[in-house]
């Protein structure tokens, strides 16, 4: 962290905002004691994934889009498969949907364990980072790594490897895991369940600053349990629509300072996707054990404090682990690892719940399966306008803090959203400018 004082104006500058995926900047402008602007600037050159998907075959997006993010590749694979299968008029059998759900549980466990223990808990426990936390609370870091390892193992068995899985294809999988392989995961998952329940207890005891998000919450809702691999869209104001209608409701605008597109619902309302939205809209879909953990942690039927997102992530860790064990327990094999998805001309939409929130894909295919157009709306670009609005209120109430402390708290606040800037291009440097 460096502080630079320039002539007249005061500018506080943080070189990098540690423990956020990617690289970027936050800029706060204060005039006469009022926060007049908060911007999240995004640096990395725009990604041309949507452009270079054009002209590729309909079978390729799961592998190509998985490369957009090293933390949530399964989300990209699942949303792209759903979209292409819809375009081709194919629905996969339920046992393959369950296997997708199982793979997705692995990604959630991996991603949430990383965020809760290595990126976010140090903020609440007063450590500069996970390394310093490891020196005094090695038990916590080891628990986080153990959870992450259980998620990795699940990804490896179902997905072929723990990062950028190679076993996913349009129509299903290349190879089915054996009963023996799935059973082999049980000891690690049973331990992970104990660890996840302990995680909820730990984070429930943290101190949470008061904050309430006023925004509309958007998440999938599904008959298959807490939403991961399927569902239609619901919102906290009671709107409900199919995934195919997302494109008409979500309007993306380009903002000069940022390489990420900013999304708004119907062009006006900033909205929020991710753990708080999922929990608030699907609390009743959690497994009984996860519901009990949430209750014991003091969560009600909704959670609108972004600082408590760490508690919701921990509850979701419990749910993902319970789900993984349940699917393995009931796994009865599948008749084939995949179904045929012959190409046809058409448009398809797919949405699933990435660890950071709803991830939407849309593809337009030619008759021979060539991709004519592709659209990808990642969670972080959907959340960006609401993050900025939240931070504006947050900073306004804390302007009298010493600068170092203000910056530290802003960093913590931004980590509440677990922004995956690699997906929405990259994140964060922080400047506070007084005029």
């Amino acid at each position, binding site marked *: 962290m460096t502080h630079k004082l320039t002539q007249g104006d005061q500018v506080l500058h943080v070189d990098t905002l540690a423990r956020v995926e990617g690289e970027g900047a936050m800029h706060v402008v204060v005039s006469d004691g009022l926060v007049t602007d908060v911007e999240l600037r995004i640096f990395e050159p725009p990604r041309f994934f949507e452009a270079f998907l054009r002209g590729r075959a309909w079978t390729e997006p799961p592998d190509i889009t998985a*490369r957009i993010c*090293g933390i949530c590749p399964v989300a990209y694979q699942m949303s792209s498969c759903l979209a292409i299968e819809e375009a081709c008029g194919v629905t996969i059998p339920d046992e393959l949907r369950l296997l997708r759900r199982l793979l997705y549980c692995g990604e959630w466990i991996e991603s949430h364990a990383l965020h809760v223990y290595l990126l976010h808990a140090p903020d609440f426990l007063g450590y500069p*980072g996970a*390394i310093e936390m*490891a020196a005094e609370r090695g038990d916590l*870091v080891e628990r986080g*790594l153990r959870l992450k*390892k259980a998620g990795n193992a699940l990804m490896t068995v179902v997905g072929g490897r*723990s990062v950028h899985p190679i076993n996913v294809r349009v129509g299903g999988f290349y190879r089915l895991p054996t009963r023996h392989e799935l059973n082999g995961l049980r000891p690690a998952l049973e331990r992970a369940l104990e660890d996840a329940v302990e995680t909820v207890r730990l984070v429930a005891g943290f101190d949470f600053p008061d904050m309430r998000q006023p925004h509309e919450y958007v998440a999938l809702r599904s008959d298959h349990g807490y939403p991961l691999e399927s569902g239609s869209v619901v919102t906290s104001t009671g709107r409900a629509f199919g995934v195919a209608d997302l494109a008409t409701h979500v309007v993306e605008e380009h903002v000069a300072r940022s390489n990420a597109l900013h999304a708004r619902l119907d062009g006006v309302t900033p909205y929020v996707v991710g753990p708080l939205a999922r929990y608030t809209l699907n609390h009743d879909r959690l497994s009984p054990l996860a519901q009990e953990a949430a209750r014991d942690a003091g969560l009600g039927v909704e959670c609108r404090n972004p600082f408590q997102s760490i508690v919701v992530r921990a509850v979701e860790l419990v749910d993902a682990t319970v789900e993984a064990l349940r699917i393995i327990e009931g796994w009865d094999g599948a008749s084939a690892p995949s179904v045929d998805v012959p190409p046809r001309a058409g448009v398809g939409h797919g949405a699933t719940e990435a660890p950071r929130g709803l991830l939407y894909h849309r593809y337009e295919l030619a008759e021979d399966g060539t991709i004519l157009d592709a659209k990808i709306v990642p969670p972080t670009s959907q959340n960006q306008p609401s993050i900025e609005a939240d931070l504006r209120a947050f900073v306004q109430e804390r302007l009298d803090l010493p600068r170092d402390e203000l910056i530290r708290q802003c960093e913590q606040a931004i980590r509440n959203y677990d922004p995956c800037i690699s997906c929405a291009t990259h994140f964060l440097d922080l400047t506070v400018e007084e005029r």
Partner: protein
Amino acid sequence: MRVRALVIGLGNPERGDDAVGRHVARLVAAQHVDVRVIELDDPSEALEAWGTADTVVVTDAVTSDGDPGEIRVVDATARTLLAGSWASRGTHAFGLAAVVELARALGQLPRRLLLVGVEAKRFDHGTSMSDAVAAAVPAAAAAVLAAIENEGEDA
């Protein structure tokens, strides 16, 4: 056959010079059967991968002030790593320096941990390695072997 060491090639194969660690590891694997070689995208998995191995060499792209293709060998058991040069690129949540220091804090470093870095410059998505970095792969592979064999000279 006794496995002399574990070599971990780190990097994203789709991001230009970031792939160099993997190419170095592959060359070592092709030349020496008594070295175990794995490739990883995510440095945080290195901690799990080295497990109880005695001697580990990690090859990765590095960014400091050097010229592209310059090779740097660091004994990570002997000194603290500065995040700047061994920081993460792109989608890596945890850079190599953070992983090594986390392992040190948890008492999980291997007995010998050596890093062989190749100075890199170009990390654009969808590009191949730059010429200078690609040309350095054989020398970096030789540096990996030397690092494994030069026990006693580390200190």
